[in-house]
């Protein structure tokens, strides 16, 4: 059997604050297989961001281990790209230079950089905005740049923390379809956090549901992917099987309302 891309076992995290220790998560076990798109849905404050930060390597777990390709995670690295909820693209770099930043750090040649950047600009519908600065873009455009920047660095796994929470509902639908298409085109392993049930099911191969704080994984549902060419909201909403899954997940999530 192949190694898990990510294996979290016995993970538990406690934050030390001035007011005393705060238990951020319960005990969590999960695995992510190569090429899989796993979404994690749970109420706010349940500890999903803490788990993602630990996988990214920004925090050391209080208890338990996290392995990436069988090796323990020591800190952030280019094998694990992150798309943040807050905008993390650099205001002082143009769209082109933001997307090419990872390759620039890796020491890729200009020709190689240009090729990758051009491909992602095309895939993420950013054509014509290559030389704009982030402050000249709409919220949805900025988030596209953030996604493209992470993909361009070609990490092994991509961690996404509610990346579309701050954009308007219409743009969000487009971004979700674009993300599905991007994943189908590149076959990346993705771990995606959200509090939207529809978003979780629409994107996922597998949905994990978390309890309220201190969060643990309470359920896991596979989402059958019938056409590999990507998903779109029209066929998603028309599919009775998807509606069934959504109902089940909604039921699980509602029980955890805070």
């Amino acid at each position, binding site marked *: 059997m192949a190694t898990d891309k990510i294996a979290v076992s016995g993970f538990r995290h406690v934050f030390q604050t001035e007011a005393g220790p705060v238990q951020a998560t319960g005990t969590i076990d999960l695995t992510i297989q190569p090429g899989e798109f796993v979404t994690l849905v749970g109420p706010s404050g349940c500890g999903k961001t803490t788990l993602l930060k630990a996988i*990214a390597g*920004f925090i050391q777990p209080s208890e338990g281990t996290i392995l990436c390709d069988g090796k323990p995670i020591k800190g*952030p*690295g*280019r094998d*694990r*790209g*992150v798309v*943040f909820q*807050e*905008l*993390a*693209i*650099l*205001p*002082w*770099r143009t769209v082109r230079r933001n997307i090419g*930043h*990872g390759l620039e*750090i*890796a020491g890729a040649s200009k020709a190689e950089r240009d090729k990758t950047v051009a491909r992602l600009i095309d895939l993420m519908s950013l054509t014509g905005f290559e030389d704009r*600065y*982030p*402050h*000249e873009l709409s919220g949805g455009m900025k988030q596209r740049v*953030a996604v493209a*920047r*992470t993909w361009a*660095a070609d*990490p092994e796994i991509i961690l996404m923390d509610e990346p579309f929470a701050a954009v308007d509902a219409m743009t969000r639908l487009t971004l979700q379809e674009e993300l599905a298409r991007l994943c189908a085109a590149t076959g990346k392993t993705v771990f995606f956090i959200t509090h939207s049930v529809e978003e979780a099911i629409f994107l996922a191969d597998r949905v994990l549901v978390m309890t309220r704080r201190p969060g643990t994984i309470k359920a896991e549902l596979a989402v059958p992917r019938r056409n590999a060419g990507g998903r779109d909201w029209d066929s998603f909403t028309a599919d009775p099987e998807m509606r069934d899954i959504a109902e089940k997940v909604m039921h699980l999530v509602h029980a955890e309302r805070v």
Partner: protein
Amino acid sequence: MTVNRIVWRLLPAAPPAVLLLAWSIYWAIEQPPPSVMPSVVGVIATFGELALGDRLGADILASLGRLLGGAACGIVTGTIAGFVAGLHRPIAAFLTPLVVFFNAISGIVWLPLVIGWFGVGSALAIFLIWNSVFFIVFQNTVLGVQLVPEVLEYGVRTLGASRWESIRSVTLPGALPYILTGIRSGLGFGWRALIAAELVGATTGLGQLIFSGAEYHRADIIVAGCLIIGAIAMAMDRWLLLPIERRTVQRWGLIAPDRSR
């Protein structure tokens, strides 16, 4: 649009014009003794005299050289120390009391001591300018470094950036608005320190020009000297700092564009 633009262009010239007008009117009514308050015409005549004389150019160059030397020392050391303190809390905790202590001590206090250390001349002026530029650049840089959003650094770390690369591509540009503000205020304080240093500890420079005017009760020379200092300071701000600001922090949308420039 065009009228609006012309108004914005002319606006910076309005305060000096008002000041000149008020000065002329006051002088015409009160007729104060020229040794106390010179007339506008008198100062203009003195300008001509100074411009035709042989020391003004040398004085300006001497002062500018000291200012730029001292300010460069202050900006470089202030920015580097500010970065180190901004990135490491223990170092900030160690340096802050020292900075607050020394920042409270006026440059003039150092004069008698510094004359003993460096003698009279450019080294003295450069030290006093450094003393007034360093602290404000340091404090602004610390603040700027600490205010760069953590998520930006997280972002480039996951792209594989080293600590050094992250400082270069995130912290430095992120702190730039504050560093530039520090430099701008620092230059103003630098001019003040320069003239103070030159009044006592120099044989050339605009400070000496003003001092010699004071010796002969020539208020016109004092005012002319002040106007030259102010004009150079304004020119440096407009043609040195503003273009940098326009091409960096303003272009990046970190500060709102200024319509008057």
